[in-house]
C-alpha cells in the first residue's frame, strides 16, 4: 500500500466541512507557514520537495515560483488551474469534490509564498456543482479567519475567487486561461512575455494545477526533504491517477511513483485488471494528448525493463517507444477496442477545441478528423494514412500553443504503433469491425492466468 498524502482523509465522513477537516489536522500548514516561515522559505521548501507540476507539463513548481517577477507596487496573482478538460483526466474534480479544504489550504500557503492577495480558481464550466462546494469551503475558511484581512494576525490578506469557465478545453492552457479570466476570448498568448512577468491584468502571475497546489499542504507539513524521499528520481511525492476505460475499477488513485504500470493495471488495489478476462491492447497513460502505447511497449520499455508509473520511466524511449506521464489520465483499451475509431474520437475532440488562432491547428485538426472518419467508415485510401502522417508532422511544433502538439501526438502514435490496423480498415472495410488486428503482434506478453 503506497503512501497517501492527498486523499488520505478524502473519505472521512464530513471531511467537506470545515469542522471535520480542521479536526483531522487541516490548516496546520497555514499556521506553520504564516507564523514560522517567510514567503521565501515556503518557496524554498517547495523547491526542495522536487514537486513537479501536475497539470501535464511536469515543470518543477518551486522553480516556477522563483521565476515570479516582483516589481514594486504591482500586484501579483496566483491562479489555480481547475479547468481539467483533457479526456481521461478527472483527478482534480475528485480532489475538489471530496476534500475541497485541502485545495483552499494549499492556495493560502502558496498565495502567501507568492505574495498574492487575490487568488483565483479558474474552474471548468461543466463542474458547476463543484463551484458550490468550493465556495462553501472558502466561506467557511473565511469565517474561521483563514482568509480575509490580516490572517492569523500576520498582516497577510487574501481573498480567493472562483471563476467558472464556459466549457472550452483551450482555456486550460495557462495563457488562454488568463485571457478568459480577463473576460476576453480564450486564445492562447504568444510567449514571451511569460505569465511570471506579465500574466493576469499585466501583473506577474503563477498558474498551477489543482493537484500541484494541494500538494503544497503535505510538503509544508512534513517538510520538502521528507516529501522528496517519496517516489524515485525526479518523480517525487505522490500522484493522482484517474483511471478509466476497460478496467474493473475505474476511479482516482493516489500512487507513490514507485509502482509498475503492470501492477497499476492488474493489482486489486488499483484498476483491478481488465473485465471479462480480455487482454490488454493498448493504453494512454497520461490523458488523451500523450502517445498511445501498445501493450508490449507499455509494460516493458524497449530496453526490456519494467515500465514504472513515473515521469522518467513512462517517457523512456521518447515518442518512438515511450509516452508521457501527462496529467495522469490513464485510459485502458482492451483487445476489442478499435484504435482507428479511438483516434477519430480524439481527433474530433481536438478539432472542436482548437481556438482557431493558428492555421496548422485550426485547419489541420479538421482535416485529420475528416480523413480518420473516412478510414473508420470504410471510405479511406491507403494514401490517406501517409497524408495523415504528413499533416500531423507539420502541425507538431509549429503552433502557438501546445494544443497543436496535443492534437498531433495521438494521431502520430496511433499510426506509429497500429499502422496495420489503419491498413486493414482501408483494405477490408467490412471486416474491419471484427478483427483483432495483429493483436499477437503487440498483445501483452503475459498469459492471462499469470495476472493477479
Amino acid at each position, binding site marked *: 500500500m503506497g503512501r497517501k498524502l492527498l486523499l488520505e482523509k478524502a473519505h472521512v465522513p464530513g471531511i467537506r466541512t470545515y469542522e471535520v477537516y480542521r479536526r483531522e489536522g487541516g490548516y496546520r500548514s497555514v499556521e506553520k507557514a504564516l507564523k514560522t516561515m517567510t514567503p521565501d522559505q515556503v518557496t524554498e521548501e517547495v523547491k526542495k520537495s522536487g514537486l513537479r507540476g501536475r497539470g501535464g507539463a511536469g515543470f518543477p513548481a518551486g522553480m516556477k515560483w522563483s521565476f515570479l517577477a516582483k516589481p514594486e507596487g504591482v500586484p501579483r496573482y496566483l491562479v489555480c488551474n481547475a479547468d481539467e478538460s483533457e479526456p481521461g483526466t478527472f483527478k482534480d474534480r475528485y480532489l475538489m469534490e471530496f476534500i475541497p479544504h485541502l485545495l483552499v489550504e494549499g492556495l493560502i500557503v502558496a498565495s502567501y509564498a507568492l505574495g498574492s492577495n487575490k487568488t483565483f480558481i479558474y474552474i471548468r464550466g461543466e463542474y458547476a456543482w463543484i463551484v458550490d462546494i468550493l465556495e462553501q469551503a472558502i466561506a467557511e475558511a473565511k469565517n474561521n479567519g483563514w482568509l480575509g484581512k490580516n490572517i492569523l494576525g500576520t498582516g497577510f490578506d487574501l481573498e480567493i475567487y472562483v471563476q467558472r469557465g464556459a466549457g*472550452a478545453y*483551450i482555456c486550460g492552457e495557462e495563457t488562454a486561461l488568463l485571457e478568459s479570466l480577463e473576460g476576453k*476570448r480564450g486564445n492562447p*498568448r*504568444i510567449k*514571451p*512575455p511569460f505569465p511570471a512577468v*506579465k500574466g493576469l*491584468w*499585466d501583473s506577474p502571475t503563477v498558474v498551477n494545477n489543482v493537484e500541484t497546489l494541494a500538494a503544497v499542504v503535505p510538503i509544508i507539513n512534513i517538510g520538502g526533504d521528507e516529501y522528496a524521499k517519496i517516489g524515485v528520481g525526479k518523480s517525487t511525492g505522490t500522484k493522482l491517477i484517474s483511471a478509466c476505460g476497460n478496467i474493473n475499477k475505474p476511479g482516482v488513485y493516489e500512487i507513490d511513483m514507485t509502482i509498475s504500470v503492470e501492477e497499476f493495471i492488474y493489482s486489486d488495489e488499483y484498476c483491478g485488471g481488465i473485465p471479462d478476462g480480455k487482454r490488454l491492447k493498448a493504453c494512454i497513460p497520461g490523458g488523451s494528448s500523450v502517445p498511445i502505447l501498445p501493450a508490449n511497449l507499455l509494460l516493458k520499455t524497449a530496453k526490456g525493463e519494467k515500465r514504472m508509473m513515473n515521469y522518467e520511466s513512462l517517457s523512456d524511449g521518447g515518442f518512438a517507444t515511450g509516452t508521457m506521464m501527462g496529467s495522469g489520465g490513464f485510459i485502458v483499451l482492451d483487445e476489442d477496442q478499435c484504435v482507428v475509431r479511438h483516434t477519430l474520437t480524439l481527433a474530433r475532440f481536438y*478539432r*472542436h*477545441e*482548437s*481556438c*482557431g*488562432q*493558428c*492555421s*496548422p491547428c*485550426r*485547419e*489541420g*485538426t*479538421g*482535416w485529420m478528423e*475528416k480523413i480518420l472518419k*473516412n478510414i473508420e467508415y470504410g471510405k479511406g485510401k491507403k494514401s490517406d494514412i501517409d*497524408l495523415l502522417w504528413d*499533416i500531423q508532422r*507539420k502541425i507538431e*511544433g*509549429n*503552433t*502557438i500553443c501546445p494544443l497543436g502538439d496535443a492534437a498531433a501526438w495521438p494521431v502520430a502514435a496511433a499510426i506509429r504503433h497500429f499502422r496495420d490496423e489503419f491498413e486493414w480498415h482501408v483494405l477490408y472495410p467490412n471486416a474491419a469491425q471484427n478483427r483483432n488486428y495483429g493483436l499477437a503482434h503487440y498483445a501483452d506478453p503475459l498469459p492471462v492466468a499469470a495476472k493477479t
Partner: protein
Amino acid sequence: MSTIYIDNKQYEVKAGKNLLEACLGLGIDLPYFCWHPALGSVGACRQCAVKVFKDENDTHGRLVMSCMESIRDGLHLSVSDKTAKAFRSQVIEWLMTNHPHDCPVCDEGGSCHLQDMTVMTGHDYRRYHYKKRTYTNQYLGPFIHHEMNRCIQCYRCVRYYHEYAGGKDLNVFAAHNHVYFGRERDGILESPFSGNLVEVCPTGVFTDKTLREHYTRKWDLTTAPSVCNHCSVGCNTIAGERYGQLRCITNRYNSQVNGYFLCDRGRFGYEFVNSANRITQPLIRNRTVEAVDEAVLMDHLRALLTNHTLIGIGSPRASMESNIALMQLVGKENFYQGISDNAVFVEKRIVEVMQSGVIKTASLHDIQQSDAIVILGEDLWNTAPVMALAVRQGVMKTAAHQALQNRAIAEWHDAAVKELVQQEKGFLANCTVSSSPLDEISSSVMHKAPEDLARLGFAIAQRLNMVLPVVQLNDDMSTPAAVIAAALQKAKRPVIISGAGYYNEALIRAAFDIAAACKATAEEVHLAYVMPECNSMGLAMMQASGFENAVLRTSRVNNVTAIVLENDLYRNVPAQIADVFFNNCQHCIVLDSLHNATTQHADVLIPAASFAEADGTLVNYEGRAQRFYQVFVPANKNMQESWKWLMKMQPVQTGSAVERSYHPEEVLAMGEQLLPRLSGITAVAPPRNFRVNGQPLPRAPHRYSGRTAMLSNLTVSEPKPKQDYDSPFTFTMEGYSGMPPSPLIPFFWSPGWNSNQAVNKYQEEPGGSLKNEHAGKLLFEYKQDATPVYFKDIPEAFMVRHEKWLLLPQYEVFGSEELSAYSKGISELSPSPYAALSQLDADPLSLVNGSLITVKIFEQVYELPVRINAAIPKGVMLMPAGLAGMPVMAWNSWVQIISIRL
C-alpha cells in the same frame, strides 16, 4: 545595423526589426498573412516560416516564424530551405482546405494577396477531398460586402477594426475551424474607417460594395494618383475608371500623410462623379436655358467679360490652378474667397500663425509619433477623420513605448505589446464642445463652449510659461489645465491640434500660445489646424477678402459680371446674403460639376471637370501642396477643368487673338507671380514632360484587357488613344513598366504581387517611406530661430444667456461634406436634421430625445427633433453642419426656442 546571412548571403539590415520585415525590405519574397506593417506581428497564420541556424556549422536548423524573430547580429537563416518551403506550402494547403476557390466570381480576384501567396509558395495540388465549411454572410451596410466562406482566419480584420481603429462592432466569434469574422448580427458597420477592411483583408471576404455595383478587375482599371477632396487632410488616393465611369478609390500609401488608411468618406464618397446631377453641357440662359458648344459659349462670353466689372468668387474645394486662373482673369483686387467673413477671419489667423514659422506644422506622421496630444476645440473625428485615426495611433504608440521601456520585447511584437499595454494610454487631451469617440482614449476630456476652451488653452500656456497673463478659471477647468500643462511639460514631442470648425479665432491663438510655450521644454513641437475643406488652406493663402466684401462691392458698382468658381454659395454663406449678391450682379457665370442652389442663378453655366477628370493641386491643412492627376477623359469633352475654361476666357476678355493651351505648372507659376506667398508651389510634382528612360507613365497596367473591343459597338476601328498634354501619363498601358517615382504612382504592382500589398516593393522598408518619396511640397517654412510672439488677449468666459442658446455646428463624417453627400452610400448614412443640447437645458423644458422644438434662425423657422447629449455644455445648441435643410453659417449666433411639441 546588423549583419545577417540569408541563404548564406551576407546582408546589412536595420536592427530592431523582425526577419520578415528584413527579408521583404531586401526584396526577398516571403509569404505572410497575419503580419501587416501597420498592425505588427502576432504569429498566428504560420505562413512566414523560415529556418534559423545556431551558427554557420548548424545544418539542422529550426523552423521559426520570421515575423516573430528579431534580427540578431550574425544570424543565419534560410528562406529556400526545403523543410521551410514545404511547410509554407503546407500552410497554404491548410488554408485552402476551406477556401472556396471561387476566384472567377470573387471581387478580390486579380488583386488578391491569397492568390499571390499561393502562387509564391508553389502549392498547386489539392489533397483535401472533403466538404468545405460554409457560413452565412451578413449585411454590413452600404460600403462593405461580406463573403465569409473565403476567410482564411488571419485575424487582420479584427485587429485592424478593433485595435487599430477603435471600432467595437466587428469581432471574431466561435472557435476551431469555424471562427467567424463579422458583427454580432447584421447591421451597418459603425466605424467610419470600415472601408480599410477591404484592403486589410487579404482575401475576398470584405470587398468594396460600391465597386461591386459597377465592377471592374484591377487590371482593367485606368488609374491615376489622386488626392482625396473630402476634407483638409488630403489623403493620397488611387482613383480607377473604366468605360468613362469612376469605379473605385483605393489608398495610395504615403508615409507622411495617410499611410495605409483612408476614411469611408474619402473611399466611398467618389460616386458624385458618376451622378446624374452632373453638369455636362455649357448652358446659356436666354429666354430658355439652352445647351451650346464651346465656340458659341465663348462668343456669348465676350459681351459679359468685356465692358463689365469682373468679380471672381473663389472656392475652397477648387484646385489651386482653378483659383489662380480665376484670380488671373479677374485681377487680384476683384478676387474674393467664396466663404463668409467669419471663416476668412479665422483662416487668415491660421495662415498668419503658420506663416510665422515659429512652430512646425504637424503631419499625420508627426501626430503618430507624438507623446502628448492636445486637441483644442476641433471635432477631429468628424472634420478630419484620418487625423483622428493618427491621434489614436499616437496615443497607442506612446503607451507601447512606455510599456516597452527596459524590456527585451520589440515594438513590432503586437501580441506582446498589447499584453503589456493593457488599458494604458499615451496622453491625449480632447477639449471640444461635445462628445467624440476620441474621448474614450483621452486622459483628459473637456466639453465646453469655444470661448471657454480658448480660455483653457491660454491657461495651459500660462502654466507652461509664467510670464503670460493669468487666466481666472473655475475649479472644473483649472485642475484639467494643470494636468494638461504637466503632461506637456514632460512631453518630448507634443502636438497641439485646433481648427476652424467652430469659427472661433481665439481658439487659434490659444493653440498657438500653448505650442509656443511648449518650445521651452520639448524637443520638437508640432501644431496643426484643421481647415473646413480640401483646399481651404490654399485659398486662404491667396489672402483674398471674404464673400460679404464681394457683396459690398457689387452694391457699389453696376455692371458686374460675377464668375463663381465651383462654389455653392448657399452652403458657405447665409441664403439672404447670397441672394443679395445674385441680385446685384448683372451677369453671373458659374463653373461647377454638379447642379446646386448656386447654379440656379447662373446666366452662363459651365461644366467643370471633377477631380477624376482633372489635373490640379490641393493644399492640405499643413500647407502641403499635393498634385492630383486626371484619371480619364470624360465622354463629354465640355467637362473641362475650371482652370482650362478660365484660361480660355482670358484672350476673350483681353480681345487678344492668340489662343493657346496652358498646363497646370504654368498656371501654378502664374500663381507664384501673383502671390509670392505661394512660391515653391510649382515644385509640387515633376513637370509634365517628365519621362523615365524616355518613356511616359502608363495609367493602365500591362494586363489591361479589351481595349480593341471596348468601343466596338460604336466603331470597329479602334480610336486613337486620348493624349495627355498636362502630365507625364498616358491613358493606355504603353510606357515605362517599372516603378514610377512616388508622386506618380498610378497603381501598386510588382511581379508576383498583384494586390495592394505590392506597396512593400515601393517602400524603402516595410511601413517606411516610399523610395525617393516626394510627399508633396510644404508651403510653410519652419524658421528655426523665429521668436514666438504670444497673443495673450484672452476672451471673456462663456456666459449662458436666459432662454437663448449659442448655436454651433455638429459635424458629421457622413453628410457634412458637400460632394461626398451626393454619393449614394454616404447620403444613406448621413443623419436627418436635429438639434442637440445639454441635459441641463432639456430638463427645465421637459424635453426628451425626439421632442420637437421650433427655432428661428435668420428669419427662417426650423422644426427639429431634439437630441440630448450630457456632454454638451449648458447654453449651447448644436445642429448638424452642411446637411440639406439646415441653417448655413449661422454659427455663433444666439437662437431662441419659439415652441415645443413633446
